[in-house]
């Protein structure tokens, strides 16, 4: 029973990490069709932001909260820069954006290496996040709960923003029908930029959160990028709902298989299951049936 509950939490926790990593992608890839391989590097930038902020703000708790905000801005601005300089020219060539952003990822990694040095750096976790709390008789690390909460918060915030704010409406209108949105007086260019800013900003937040769990180094992003894309693909394009289900589903699956076998086998099996799944539902879990030809 204990094992079951703790594995459930391990799966949810892994799912929340995947979700944070994939949420920004769900926006940029899902809504705009841009395959941003540098998304992982935006997360890396967020993580280094936490490192830098902690140098300035001594208190670990305060600096974490400050970092979340600044990390969002750093990730977002990097994304904005990328959108304005490169991606805006390439909306009709989705596969080429994949390659270009891969090049950007390489350069950003090297930049991090040159600026912060190749060795990993450390960000201290605040005292109120250390240790574990008892949930259903199982010790769950507070950091994991924090990230779970953060992921849920981010999803809810994004869903609300898309649904309720004028910006969200503009994004949805643009995604749904670019020409019509244009004629309705929406600046689709500005909307694209904002969408990309938001999506990349969430990557920055994810990066800050990841400092609580793992290492902070130039290659931090590469560990997550493939998984994050798989979440979006499995979830179904353009679907926050799908991404949420996919992230937690894959998290639980990975944790479950890992518990009864090994991490390596779990990883391979999850990949195999995803490929098989896409055979059955190439459009992902939650798909919008349209006349578009994807």
């Amino acid at each position, binding site marked *: 029973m204990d094992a079951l509950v703790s594995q459930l939490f391990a799966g949810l926790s892994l799912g929340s990490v995947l979700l944070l990593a994939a949420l920004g992608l769900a926006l940029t890839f899902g809504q705009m069709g841009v395959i941003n391989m540098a998304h992982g590097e935006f997360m890396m930038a967020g993580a280094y932001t936490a490192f830098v902020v902690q140098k300035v703000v001594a208190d670990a708790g305060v600096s974490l909260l400050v970092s979340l905000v600044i990390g969002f801005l750093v990730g977002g601005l990097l994304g904005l820069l990328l959108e304005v300089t490169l991606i805006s020219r390439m909306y009709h060539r989705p596969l080429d954006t994949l390659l270009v952003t891969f090049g950007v990822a390489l350069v950003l990694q090297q930049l991090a290496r040159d600026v912060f040095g190749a060795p990993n750096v450390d960000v201290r976790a605040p005292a109120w996040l250390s240790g574990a709390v008892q949930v259903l008789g199982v010790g769950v690390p507070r950091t994991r709960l924090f990230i779970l909460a953060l992921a849920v918060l981010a999803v809810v915030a994004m869903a609300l923003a898309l649904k309720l704010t004028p910006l969200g409406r503009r994004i949805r209108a643009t995604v749904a029908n670019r*020409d*019509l949105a244009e*004629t309705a007086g929406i600046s689709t260019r500005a909307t694209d930029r904002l969408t990309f800013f938001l999506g990349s900003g969430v990557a920055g937040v994810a990066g800050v959160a990841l400092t609580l769990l793992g290492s902070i180094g130039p290659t931090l992003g590469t560990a997550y990028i493939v998984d994050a894309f798989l979440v979006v693909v499995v979830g179904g394009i353009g679907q926050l709902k799908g991404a949420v289900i996919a992230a937690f589903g894959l998290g639980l699956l990975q944790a479950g298989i890992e518990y009864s076998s090994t991490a390596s086998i779990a990883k391979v099996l999850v990949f195999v299951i995803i490929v098989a799944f896409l055979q059955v539902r190439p459009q992902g879990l939650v798909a*919008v*049936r*349209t*006349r578009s*030809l994807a």
Partner: protein
Amino acid sequence: MTTHPATPAPDEGAQVQLDPQALEAVIAAPGERFRHDYLEVRGLRVEFDGFVAVDGVDLTVTQGDLRFLIGPNGAGKTTIVDAITGLARCSGSVQFGRVELVGKPAHQIVRAGVGRTFQTASVFDELSVLQNLDIAAGSRRGLPTLLRRRRSVPEEVEQALETIGLTALADSPAGVLAHGQKQWLEIGMLLVQDAHLLLLDEPVAGMSHAEREQTGLLLQRIGEQRTVVVVEHDMEFLRTFASSVTVLHQGRVLSEGTVAQVQADPKVVEVYLGRGAGARGSATEVE
């Protein structure tokens, strides 16, 4: 929503001309071949994520008919074409030449004799005009033939080139063609593909007046032998060339008959000139 891209029509005096004589060579086959070909659509229904785009449409088009589908935006015209050709998933029944098409993959529907064009002329821009037609003519080629290079121009391709007046441009990339020429190329591709049922989605969009005239005559001639369905907004074109018209509204058949019958139908007038015109912004399409 503007339907017609503001593509400049090719120069009025362009040398390019359709060649009806050559057409005769292409479709010279005895009319017998097409005798039993007719399109029969029953209870066609297409749903997009809860939104019903086509709702129980019945349609019968016989050989020799030049049927026009009209209706305001969102009426489901293109969706019907999509459903017939296997692009949109649908329920109901679509039979052509007594072969059930619903449920077949698109390429097999084509092999059953159904051909279509797209609203935005979709030809292979990077390939030459000749290559475009050659590909259209070759869906039954085996792998050994495919893996060899083309040594000579197939006869039907040569004739189609003449028919659509693009012989001189045979080796130019299709991407450089004027809009109207691309539309003709698409029609040429349908001809070499030996389609018995031709579904044309706005074939004269963006064409000059003279080009429309020529295209209309071409379609009329083709329509004598084969089954032709045209989705079109251009009312003048319709009045000149349609032999029958089906008016669609909100996914249903609103009215059907000759041009005169349809124009006199009060329901049609209501949809086009009543509330529909302002709301949908399609007044221009009605003239």
